[in-house]
C-alpha cells in the first residue's frame, strides 16, 4: 500500500517535471531533495549505512593495450572500514587490503607484518581502486546541488562534493545521482588543483534486503584514468548484508 503511494508520488513528480520541462519553466533545483540526503541514499546502494555487507568482485584492469590478469576478491565492509581478500589468481590467495579510516594496509601470506600503503602509492594501481570504491561519501564530503544532467538518457542530479578535511584523497567529486533511483551513476574525481584525475561509472543490478526493504546495490563499476589510458572494471556479485565483527578490521589480526 505505502509502496504504491510512494511510487505514485514519484510518478507524479516525474510527470510534473516532464510537463513543466516541456515549457522550460521548471527550475529543476526547486524540486530536488536535499543534497546531503541524496548522498546518503546513494551511499546505501554501495554499502553505506548498513551494519555490514559482504560481496565478491571480479576485477579486470587494462593499462594501455596491456590487459592484466583478472582478479577475484571477497570484500567485507562496514562504514569507514573494508577488507578485500584476494581469491584469484590462486597464487595471490590470502593477500588482503585493509582500509580503516583513511589508512590502508596490505598483507600477504608469508609477510611477518602488514605493510602500510602511503598516499603516494594510492595514486595508481589496486590501492587507488580501493580509494574509489570507498562507500561512504556522506562522511567525508559536503554536498551541494549543482545541476541536472542526464547520463545515458537518465535524468540525474549533479552534486558537487568537497572534502570535509584535508586527508581525504580526492578533494572534489562531481557526482551524478539518478533522480529516479537515487543511486550514483557517474562520478568525476578531481585533484586539489582542480584537475580531473579519474572517472567512474556505476551500475546497480543487484538487490539486497535490509530491514524489510529491498535496496538496489552496485553490480558494476568502471573506473577510467583521466591522465593515462587505463581502465578498471569491477563486477559485484554474491552480495549479502551481514553483520561484521570489528575484529575483521583489526590490523593485529589481519594475518
Amino acid at each position, binding site marked *: 500500500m505505502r509502496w504504491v503511494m510512494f511510487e505514485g508520488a514519484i510518478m507524479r513528480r516525474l510527470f510534473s517535471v516532464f510537463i513543466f520541462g516541456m515549457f522550460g519553466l521548471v527550475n529543476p533545483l526547486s524540486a530536488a531533495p536535499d543534497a546531503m540526503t541524496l548522498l546518503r541514499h546513494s551511499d546505501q546502494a554501495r554499502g553505506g549505512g548498513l551494519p555490514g555487507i559482504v560481496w565478491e568482485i571480479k576485477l579486470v584492469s587494462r593499462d*594501455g593495450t596491456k590487459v592484466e590478469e583478472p582478479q577475484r576478491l571477497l570484500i567485507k565492509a562496514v562504514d569507514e572500514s573494508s577488507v578485500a581478500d584476494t581469491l584469484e589468481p590462486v597464487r595471490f590467495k590470502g593477500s588482503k587490503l585493509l582500509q580503516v579510516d*583513511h589508512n590502508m594496509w596490505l598483507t600477504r601470506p608469508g609477510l611477518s607484518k602488514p605493510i602500510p600503503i*602511503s*598516499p*603516494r602509492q*594510492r*595514486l*595508481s594501481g589496486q590501492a587507488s581502486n580501493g580509494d574509489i570504491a570507498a562507500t561512504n561519501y556522506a562522511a567525508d564530503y559536503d554536498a551541494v546541488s549543482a545541476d541536472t544532467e542526464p547520463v545515458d538518457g537518465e535524468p540525474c542530479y549533479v552534486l558537487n562534493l568537497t*572534502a570535509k578535511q*584535508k*586527508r*581525504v*584523497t*580526492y*578533494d572534489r567529486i562531481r557526482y551524478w545521482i539518478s533522480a529516479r533511483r537515487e543511486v550514483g551513476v557517474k562520478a568525476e*574525481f578531481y*585533484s*586539489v*588543483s582542480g*584537475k580531473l*584525475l579519474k572517472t567512474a561509472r556505476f551500475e546497480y543490478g543487484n538487490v539486497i534486503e535490509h530491514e524489510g526493504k529491498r535496496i538496489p546495490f552496485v553490480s558494476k563499476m568502471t573506473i577510467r584514468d583521466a*591522465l*593515462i*589510458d587505463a581502465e578498471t572494471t569491477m563486477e559485484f556479485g554474491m552480495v549479502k548484508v551481514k553483520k561484521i565483527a570489528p575484529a575483521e578490521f583489526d590490523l593485529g589480526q589481519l594475518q
Partner: protein
Amino acid sequence: MKNISMKNTFTLALRGLSRNRRRSMVTLLAIAFGYSAIVLFAGYTHNVYGGLARQSIYGEMLGHLTLSKRGMRKEGKLDPERYMLTSTEVASITKLLKDEKHIELLAPRLGLSGLISNGRASTIFIADGIEPKAVVDLRQGGLTDQERKSGMYENMKMRLDPEHSEVVSLSEGLVEMLHLSVGGQAVVLANTLTGQANALDITLGRSFNTGNAGSNDKFAFVSLALARSLLDAEGRADRLTILLDDVNRTETMRAHLQEKLRAAGFDVEIQNWQDLSDFYNQVHGMFDMIFGFIFSIVLTVVIMSVANSMGMTVVERTREIGTLRAIGLKRGGVIKLFTTESMLLTLIGCITGLLIALVVRWGINIAHISYTPPNSASAVPLLIDLDARRAMFTFVLMGVVGTLAAYMPARRAAKKDIIDALGHV
C-alpha cells in the same frame, strides 16, 4: 770544548758536494724531479678542487650553506610535513637574514616526487622546486668572466621560466621515456602534504643531463611555485639555499648564522656544501689518496737516493774522514758535516725542482689544454695552480728526510777507528 762553527760546516759541506760532481748532480736531479712532480700534482689537484667547489656550489646549486629544520635530514624523509619550514618560518628567517652583508642570495627549495604522465604512460619522477631567478643567480656564479662574456650564460640549460611556472626542466632519460619534445605537454601527479591526490599540467622547457645514469631518468627541476602548488604548501620550503660572497667565509658564516638563528628561536641546522656534495668529497678523497701515494713514492726515492749517495761518498772519503778526525774533528763534527752536505743537496735539489715545476706549470697553463673528466658532460681546461702550503710542507719534509738519510752512513763513518780510516785504501 771547541767546535767547528756552523758557517764553517756549511762551507766545508758545500765544497764536499763538488767532491764527486757527477754523483751529486744525479742525486740532485732525482730530488729535483721528485719535488717538481709533487708540486705540479699538488697544483693540479688544487685547481681541480677549486673547479669542483665551483661545480658543487654553483653548478649543482648547493650554494655555500643549506639551512633546514633540525631533523629534516634524517626523520624528514619519512615525515616531510613535520620537518618542513612553515611559511611563517621562511618569511621570518628571510627577513632576519636580509641585512647580512655576506649573503648574496637566500633561496627557498622544495623537493617532491610523484608520477609524470604523457597521457599514455606514466613513470615516477623526483623534482627540486626552485625560483627561476635563483637558478640564474646560482649558476652564473660558477662561470668565469670569460665564460660569461662568451654567451655560455645564455645557454645554461637548467633555466626555468619566471613568467610561466608550468615550464619545467626534465632529465634526458625522462624526456626520452615520455617521448616529449620542447614545448610538449605532460601532467605531474603527486600527493599534497596531507595526502590528497593532486595533478598539474606542465610544459617541457629544457632537458638536461644529470651526469649520473641512475638519476638521469628520474630527475626534474620545477619552479618553486609549481612545487608549492602541487604539494599544497603555500610559502613553505624544506630548505633554504644560502649563497655567500666568498667561499672562504663558509665556516665562519655557518657558525654565525647558526647562532643568530638559534638565538632568535629557530630550531635549524646549517650544513655547508662540502657536507652535502658527495661527488666533491669522493673526488677530493681520491685525489688526496693519489697525492699521498705519489708523495710517499717520491719521498722514498729521495731517501734512497740520498742514503745511497751519502753512503758511497762516506766510503770513498774514509781516508779524508780519518785525516779530519786526526787533526781534531770530533765524531759529532763528522756527522754534522755529512748531514749538512746532504741537507744542502736536498735543499738545492728542492729549489731546482721548484724552478722546474714553475716552468712546466707556465708551459701547461699557456698551452690551453682541455680534457673531459668523468661524470662531466663537457670539457674543462687543464690548469695547474701553485699550492704554496703543500709546496712548503713538502720542502720542509724533504729537507728533514734528506738530512736524516745521511745520518746512518755518517754515523758509521764517525764511529770508525781513526787508524782503520787512515789505512783505508
